[in-house]
């Protein structure tokens, strides 16, 4: 278990003890029994786990918001303008948008499938927020750093996205959302397979499915971007596509499909859906950092978490660069790129990894 977890367990014990002593002070029998029950071990574990989850979620979400800010500023610079100017270096633009979106009315289209309409966006957002827990900041600051199957867990949750998108696009009962949902699902499936194969090549070399294992392997040997350069490039292109950003943003091509599969969603659901595009980009940048750039490994003069975040922000800078430099491509081009270019490259990369492993280089 992580240091964060230990600290919070101590804090929870103290807090629940305080609550129990307050309840004891009332001199009511059943209340002091309740106080005793609060101090039992399962309750402490549950509360501590919830606290870890909430703290980690909020931290990761704040950095996800920083990504939106980073994109606004850098995209502005790429286009030779200043970017947003609201508040401190434009950082408060996010909060302004958030407050505006929260104040909107919740509208459900009359002819939509109400239950599925609500369920789909909920499933999509829940899978995004679950993904936050999969990427540790370091071996101390994490929800579950040393779980054996952490990488696989992240990918399994990722694969839940297309399903929610398709159902949401259908349930809105709108041509644009249906087309957007179909495009999103086709694209996500086409790019998910090369992405998975790149992860497999990393796992082949490191022989570990946990982030701690992968990062410590890279600390002792070499950053995997050097031996698996093809894989890193493939992973990068595939993850730009997975996060539905500009060269691959067909699912929500504004000029043709209004807002893609999320056209009919309003209020905070839309706001969170919009933000969750960036959250997913953040998670993919984090995965790239973990798998190819040595994660939180780095010289000791700043914290491990700061190394991880710095690398993630640099990877996202390249995402922005791609967005500023390219134009949207067609559906058939995306599918062709996914199946005919990235898939063979990913397989080639897997062969390189296997050859390196068999030759005993690492």
């Amino acid at each position, binding site marked *: 278990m992580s240091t964060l977890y230990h600290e919070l367990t101590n804090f929870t014990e103290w807090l629940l003890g305080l609550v129990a002593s307050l309840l004891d002070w009332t001199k009511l029998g059943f209340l002091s029994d309740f106080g005793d029950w609060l101090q039992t071990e399962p309750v402490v574990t549950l509360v501590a786990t919830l606290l870890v989850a909430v703290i980690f979620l909020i931290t990761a979400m704040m950095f996800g918001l920083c990504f939106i800010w980073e994109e606004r500023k850098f995209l502005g610079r790429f286009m030779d303008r200043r970017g947003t100017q609201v508040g401190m270096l434009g950082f408060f633009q996010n909060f302004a948008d958030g407050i505006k979106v929260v104040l909107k009315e919740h509208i459900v289209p009359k002819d939509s*499938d109400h239950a*599925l309409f609500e369920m789909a966006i909920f499933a999509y957002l829940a899978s995004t927020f679950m993904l936050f827990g999969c990427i540790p900041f370091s071996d101390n600051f994490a929800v579950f750093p040393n779980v054996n199957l952490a990488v696989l867990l992240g990918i*399994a949750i990722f*694969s*839940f996205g297309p399903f929610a998108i*398709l159902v949401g696009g259908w349930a809105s*009962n709108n041509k644009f959302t249906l087309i957007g949902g179909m495009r999103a699902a086709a694209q996500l*499936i086409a790019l998910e397979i090369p992405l998975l194969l790149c992860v497999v090549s990393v796992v082949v070399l490191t022989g570990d499915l946990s982030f701690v294992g992968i990062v410590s392997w890279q600390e002792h040997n070499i950053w995997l971007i050097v031996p698996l350069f093809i894989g890193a490039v493939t992973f990068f292109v595939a993850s730009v596509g997975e996060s539905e950003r500009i060269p691959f943003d067909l699912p929500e091509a504004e000029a043709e499909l209004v807002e893609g599969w999320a056209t009919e969603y309003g209020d905070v659901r839309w706001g969170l859906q919009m933000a969750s595009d960036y959250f997913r980009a953040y998670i993919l940048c984090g995965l790239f950092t973990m798998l190819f750039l040595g994660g939180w490994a780095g010289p000791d003069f700043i914290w491990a978490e700061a190394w991880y975040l710095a690398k993630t922000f640099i990877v996202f800078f390249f995402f922005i660069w791609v967005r500023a430099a390219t134009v949207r491509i067609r559906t058939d081009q995306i599918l062709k790129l996914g199946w005919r270019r990235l898939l063979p490259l990913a397989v080639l990369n897997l062969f390189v990894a296997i050859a390196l492993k068999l030759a005993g280089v690492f």
Partner: protein
Amino acid sequence: MDLDLLFFLIFSGLTVGCAIMVLATKDIVRSVVYLAATFIGVAIIYLFLSSEYLFLIQILVYVGAINVLILFGIMLTKRRMVGADKCDDEPQRRRSP
């Protein structure tokens, strides 16, 4: 009552219920959603049998891939059958329950 048994009963009940609903719903997309719920229920039962790997692969393959392919297949078939754009085709038609 044993907590393990309680949770097993809850999730197996949900799985069986969703599997019945796959057949009982008239709306084909809804039955795919129930199918996804069935797969997730099976996956959770794998988790209770402490085989986490199988749990993750079940989610990855069945919910992530098979279900999306089924949905895809449904949506590429006739539009009237899928139920989209009801307003254009038959404005007075009632929703299937």
